[in-house]
């Protein structure tokens, strides 16, 4: 009943909070600090869903999503964008890049888990 999640965010605080929320939900979590690091961590990993921030050094969220979607095994992996902005154009840009959904920061752990289930299912596979 557990999902495996890759969370990418350049803020240590947000990473810690994501990790805490996801662990409390019984998910197994992998963390990465930016887009480039995210792709490195993703290598060899088959997460049920990916959460990513937008504003990050080296490779931002948009670039990261595009790169993930470019990989055959991840073209349908659900990706949630974590954003403080809720502006519609940001959502449409995230979607254009291939994001599945978005979560507005600060996130509510319950809503986060619900959103993950919404895109990745109940997680019975592992």
């Amino acid at each position, binding site marked *: *009943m*557990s999902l495996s999640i890759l969370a990418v965010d*350049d*803020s*240590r*605080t*947000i*990473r*810690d*909070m994501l*990790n*805490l929320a996801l*662990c*409390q*939900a*019984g998910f*197994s*979590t*992998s*963390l*990465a*600090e930016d887009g480039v*690091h995210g792709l490195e*961590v993703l290598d060899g990993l088959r997460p049920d869903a990916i959460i990513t921030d937008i*504003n*990050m*050094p080296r490779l931002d969220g948009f670039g990261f999503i595009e790169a993930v979607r470019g990989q055959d095994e991840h*073209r*349908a*992996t*659900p*990706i949630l964008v974590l954003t*403080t*902005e*809720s*502006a519609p154009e940001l959502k449409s840009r995230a*979607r254009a890049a*291939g*994001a*599945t*959904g*978005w979560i*507005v*920061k*600060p*996130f*509510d752990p*319950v*809503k986060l*888990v*619900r*959103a993950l*289930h*919404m*895109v*990745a*299912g*109940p*997680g*019975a596979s592992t």
Partner: protein
Amino acid sequence: MTTPDPMAEIRASFFIECEELLEALQDGLSMIDDGATDDETVNVCFRAVHSIKGGAGAFGLDELVRFAHRYETVLDEVRGGRLAPDHDALLLFMRAADVLSDIVRNCRDGIVTDPDAVEPTLRELEALTGGSEEEEEEEVCDFQPMTLSLDLGGCELPEADPAYEIEFWPERELFQSGNEPLFLLGALKELGSTEPRCDTDKVPDLSELDPEGACIGWKIRLTTNQGQSEIEEVFEFVEGLCTLKVHKEDPVPATGLPEISGLPSLEQGVSDVENSEPETQSSASPAENSAEVAPRMTLGIPEAPATTPPEPQPPQKTGATTPPTIPSIKTPPAAAAKPAIQATATKATVRVDLERIERLVNLVGELVINQAMLSQSVTQAGIPANSPVAQGLEEFMQLTRDIQDSVMMIRAQPVKSMFQRMARIVRESSASLDKRVRLVTVGEATEVDRTVIERLADPLTHMIRNAVDHGLEETETRIASGKSDEGCITLSAAHRSGRVIIEVSDDGAGINREKVRAIAEDKELVQPGQQLTDAEIDSLLFLPGFSTAKTVSNLSGRGVGMDVVRKSIQDLGGRVNITSTPGKGTCFSISLPLTLAVLDGMVVEAANETLVVPLGSIVETLKVRHEDMRAMGPNTQVLQIRDSFVPLMDLGVELGFRNPRDDYNGSVVLLISLEDGTRSAIIVDTIQEQRQVVIKGLQDSYGHIPGIAAATILGDGQVALILDPVDLMANATGKTRSPSSQLELAG
């Protein structure tokens, strides 16, 4: 040991992260101010503020969110190339960074920030973008978690929940974005009871089927106590990627319970859809397992069991409030996998309580003393130097030294953070005096023991203020003397011969020695007409109760003079020097020990007293020959060393242990060099050894003793004083010839 609250830990770590981000922000802004035009620098600034905002939102720090948000909005304009920041705008950004750091610290300490300190900067920031406040507020509101629906209207009667007819036709793009109708239907089920029917009419023949196309739709009847907005929220991610119609059915008679009674079976129907492995969901309602014969494709069909409910029970209550897939315990694989992943995810740093490090430093200090005692007893026991014991001890000594170095390295940190604080002092004091001042920093990466850094902040702040206030001329005066209207203060740090040299220099008018002298005479600090060198006049600034400002200004006139600055630097085992060139500027130079804990010293004897001379100050040791000594004045002599003459002094005399001896021929001399390059020769009786000593402060018990820096405990347990050669020489009489019997400087 109780497990700490994880959120409290994250909160603490958030504020540490904030400090790092603020530092990055300051760096970025100064780089832009220095002409950096690349996008990444602006991006770094933006991200710093952005991350602070993000974290602040998570902890409900509204003040911080509000300020960071507006600040970020302006930076976003810069980032997007819509706003080109001029120098004034950058100054505003730096002020905003200062305010931001204030708010961060206040939030950390639970203090409410004074709006008067925030609002002006906020308004200035807004003026840059011309953004309307209303709009901003609205966006801020968007951060709040959504409120619960109150569609029930407060009615708690078991009224029948309204039913909705939902028509859902995914489009091809829905699948491309990684969404999955199955999970959306599952999410709908969380809201209430669903009766999904699959519409496969549009599915073409297999030969014509586009494997990635979308040709199935669903009609779902949902009975829920949630409102339409909650239903639409489920489809938030797929909005625009599907055809969605939500229609509320006419209210049914308030029979309530029978409606609910149909639920278990319906839930079962959807669970089939969700899951092809029955056992994972079987706990929901084991009685209905027979219904699971329904294959996936016919997911609309299992409605029939709804007509024969086993018994009325409200399982949807729990199903709706708590997501069923969240086990409350961590699964072992998840816990086991976490540390390994984190190791790669975060940089290999640990944050350690400073107290623990202090303790380690003290213990290592004790170890050094202990090791010294041990080698002394080994020597006394007459064990030969080539014996295994002596050799082992030698290695032990090496290890001790390595440990000590490593421990010191833990405490060392770059002076950068302190320099950034000083940048702020410059900004604030220049603003209040209406002077334009640029701060140039050099050697930010120089590492110093953090206790030194901490205790240096106050005196340095005062020196910077002084430089802005007194050092730099008024703008008109600067222009009149052909200088740039912008004053320049340079703050530099460097390692030099085992010490740290920190310099504060300005390009102002230099010290007005006439005025200084007049004031000193006026205040009876010096005798009228007394012969004084330039350096001596400059040093008058350090005398207690000296202030040259004609009017007590807002900044410097706080009753804190340079004497206090000098005192606090001396307390750190440091010295402060002043050099000034009229019309060119003044430079204060602080010389500090790298650490306050240990010292490489030379153990010497003078008048039967064991003393330690810091090794860093000793250039060489030599023996005095009679022909090298030259008389100078009635009591003093100089020593010729190669091509130069160096003042000669007797340590025993200077410390008041004895009178000058008749003949110094053959005496051992230490050649001492000061930071400014001047040298002196100090006569000692014997040199015992060279070794590392642990510094034990005397300040607490004895105050500042002229010529003495601290004390230490030697290998035999004896206490020895550690000399401060520079201070010693400054107060030296230099008597090496006087036949008189009087004791100088007794005590």
